[in-house]
């Protein structure tokens, strides 16, 4: 529990430096070895997507990264400090937006709630929460209850809650899995925009290969049994991305095919 209390006190991470270091993490549930031996360094300021077949242990890995779950062996550290509980500089966006928001709190109060634990003044909390909701385009819905909003909007509330916290790193577990295709691409673009705007680091779990390639600076492909790192790919797709033009570049097609093959190679023998 030797986490630094507030993010402001730390020097801002230089882009490219290692922010979150995952060293030989493995996880067993009883006799079942889910995660084999996973090592990866998440760089400050990057967008890292983790892809892998269903049941591969992506959620398990993300929970280990966040300190919600202790790995069986290996370690995770954030700027050299071992992660044993969710650190103050980290925010998590859960897959199940409808269940991760408090139905008894307004949209604004949902976003403000985590800030209450800090010593921030009330007015400051309100300002930050409102700003975060503006960032995700929900300025007009502050007083609604989350369940009065559409699924996509609810997930944006959850994202705003993570942003209001001003984390250095945001972990997202299949955040767009349960919304329709159009909302999904909107949320992807929103996430990219927000990330550039705020300069945060994002680790996002998905099983959608297109999504992984489209969003990422690097894609971490998981596979095998127990699950290990199959590949770690730099996308080099640049800063500005567009759902149509980026996805129709030959580079995108190539990356997509590569990840697809890697995942298929992993899943087919595993089923026999």
């Amino acid at each position, binding site marked *: 529990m030797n986490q630094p209390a507030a993010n402001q006190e730390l020097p801002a991470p230089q882009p490219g430096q290692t922010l979150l270091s995952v060293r030989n993490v493995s996880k067993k549930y009883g006799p079942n070895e889910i995660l084999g031996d996973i090592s990866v360094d998440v760089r400050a300021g990057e967008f890292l997507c983790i892809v892998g077949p269903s049941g591969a242990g992506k959620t398990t890995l993300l929970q280990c990264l966040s300190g919600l779950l202790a790995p069986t062996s290996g370690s995770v550290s954030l700027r050299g400090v071992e992660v044993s509980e*969710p650190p103050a500089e980290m925010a*998590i966006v*859960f897959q199940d937006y409808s269940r*991760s928001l*408090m139905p008894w*709190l307004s949209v604004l109060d949902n976003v403000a709630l*985590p800030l*209450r634990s800090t010593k921030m003044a009330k007015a400051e909390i309100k300002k930050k929460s409102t700003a975060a909701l503006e960032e995700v385009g929900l300025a007009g819905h502050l007083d609604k*209850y989350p369940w009065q909003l559409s699924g996509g909007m609810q997930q944006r509330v959850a994202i705003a809650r993570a942003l209001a916290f001003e984390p250095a790193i945001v972990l997202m577990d299949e955040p767009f899995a349960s919304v329709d295709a159009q909302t999904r691409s909107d949320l992807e673009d929103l996430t990219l925009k927000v990330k550039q705007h705020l300069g945060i680091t994002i680790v996002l779990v998905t099983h959608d290969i297109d999504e992984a390639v489209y969003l990422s600076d690097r894609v971490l492909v998981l596979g095998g049994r127990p699950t290990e790192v199959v590949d770690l790919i730099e996308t080099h797709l640049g800063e500005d991305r567009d759902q149509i033009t980026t996805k129709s570049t030959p580079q995108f097609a190539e990356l997509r095919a590569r990840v697809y093959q890697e995942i298929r190679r992993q899943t087919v023998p595993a089923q026999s």
Partner: protein
Amino acid sequence: MKALKNILWELWLPIVLVGLWLVLSAGSKTFYFPPLARIMDKFVHVWFFDGILKDLTPSLGRILLGFILALVVGVAGGTLLGLLRRTEEALRPVLEFLRSTPGVALLPIATLFLGVGQEMKVFMIALACTWPILLNTIDGVRSVEPVLLQVARSYRMTMWERIRFIYIPNASPQIFAGGRLSLAIAAVVMVVTEMIGSPGGVGYFVLNAQRNFDILSMWTGIIMLGLLGYLLNLAFRLAENRILRWHHIKNA
């Protein structure tokens, strides 16, 4: 306009019934069922404002005190037991047993230890009211969505913050359901303890009037008890509508 319509819709039956009572009892010569018109005259005479000060205020005071005590003990204890699963499992049979024992069965022993005054009455009301609130709070605290607890952990919320912003709000619909039940029980226990206890209170007033063959006054006391129960329930409903607004519109 709509509210007015609703009020009228709720009021027409009571008005018809009171009207019927008025008309049918008008020529009554029976000692035990005097005409309603005379009861109403007597009601004004007895209760405004001597009776209100002398008997209604103490009744109201002890029912509120007992109920609030039960609310505090029930919610606090229920939250604790809801969080301590193993302890609660061990205590569950005892709690179920106590809950199933009619509260007033403890009257004789309560009078032995606490006498027949205010303490005994408030204690009995609070005791009987605690069970529904306690057991409902336990269930409400238990049913918290696990994802919310992960959210709480990931944002490093303290235990107190979790109780205040997650466990209790999540349990609040059940707490209110238990509270409503408790309020009805409170009225019964209040009347019973007043009838066997020391003078003072509407329950005592009714019994005393009957003993003195003052049947008119007795009826006014019964009506007063009805009104008291009705108004308490109304106040409770208003509070519930305010606090559980989110729950009511969500499930509308």
